């Protein structure tokens, strides 16, 4: 459904977007696909764990506030997994710029965090950096 009339090119990386809001997932997917990434979605941390153990991803983007397995718990679970999964970079989306959230994200093992609402530019820039794909 993402409208693009750009010619297909090799994907810049595979990203898993984890958020219980379908609007947020759609937004991230649209923005990142237009920027040349492959995007998959998961509705919460548990579904995300199922997906990362089934396929390779270059980045996981995860919302802090999710029911059942919040973002921090998910990242911690990721870091405890077997090696290939544990080393997937992660980007946490938080709602506050407060120091607490920043510290929690770092302690959980996230590579970086962004504060909602996230601009297209920020999303693409950080995705590029964390997947190690050229601009």
């Amino acid at each position: 459904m993402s409208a693009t009339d750009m010619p297909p090119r090799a994907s810049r990386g595979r990203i898993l977007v984890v958020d219980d809001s379908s609007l947020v997932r759609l937004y991230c997917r649209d923005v990142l696909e237009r920027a040349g990434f492959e995007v998959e979605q998961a509705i919460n941390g548990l579904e995300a764990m199922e997906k990362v153990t089934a396929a390779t991803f270059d980045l996981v983007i995860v919302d802090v506030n999710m029911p059942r397995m919040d973002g921090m718990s998910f990242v911690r679970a990721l870091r405890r997994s077997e090696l290939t999964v544990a080393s997937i970079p992660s980007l946490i989306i938080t709602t506050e710029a407060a120091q607490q959230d920043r510290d929690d994200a770092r302690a959980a093992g996230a590579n970086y965090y962004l504060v909602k609402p996230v601009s297209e530019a920020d999303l693409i820039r950080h995705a590029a950096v964390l997947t190690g794909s050229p601009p």
Partner: protein
Amino acid sequence: MAPPDLQGGRAVHVTHEDVRRLCEFLYRRTGMLFDESKRYYIDRRLSERIAATGSESFQAYFAVLRSDAREEIEHLVNAFTVNETYFYREDHQLRCMTSNLLDDLLRRKQAGDTLRIWSIPCSTGEEPYSIAMWLMENWSEVDRHNIEIVASDIDTRALKAAAEGVYGARALMRLSPSLIDRYFAPVDDGHFQIDPGLRESIQFTRANLIDPREMSSYRDFDIVFCRNVLIYFDDASRRIAAESLYDCLRPGGYICLGHSETMSRISPLFGVRRFPDAIVYQRPEAA
């Protein structure tokens, strides 16, 4: 995407966004998760329900669904679960059991320990008998271990039928003739009765998943099959049932849900394990 109205009336137009909206609602309400690849499956069943409720638009149908008028949620969920029971249903989970789960469980057991498997709800018995048959047919170690199969349901009439073990041809449709020959004897008018040895092997009990006190006398199970029932509960009942099921399992024990069901909507108590044949949930092993 305008599926034909089954009553021959004006076709109701359903968009991608409508289907998304439906799937999200279904997930929140029941825990059933459908991804993009299941889109056709959803379209058909949605059309059926729109027609069955005489809804003039998706919006009108969705309003009926959200308010659960005339138990529409149950009707829709039934449409998705193909609400009939038969032998070797969702056998990929049975395969997972013999290919992966049993080995893992045995690693943590002492010699002589009993393997305990629970089918709840067992309905008219197809599931527990399938488990027993599958083990005998597909597990090379089956004679080297004690296996206890318990089968429970809230419906005593179903339990009675299960204990009798008489089935029509339709319930046997996935079984090969040699399997039927091995485990069933024909009885009058096209029915088959399951081998008396098997019938006696299974312990049938009445149990209510939502009643923690009833559930508290069930303990130390290694595998629980709890398929396509939690989706019918409300949030509160589901949560209570999940906590009970946790307690009914041994540490490291497994629980198998229906193939579209996810534990993620139900409870954070279980870990998820992905095997080639199935995704199952696990009570964490003892620390």
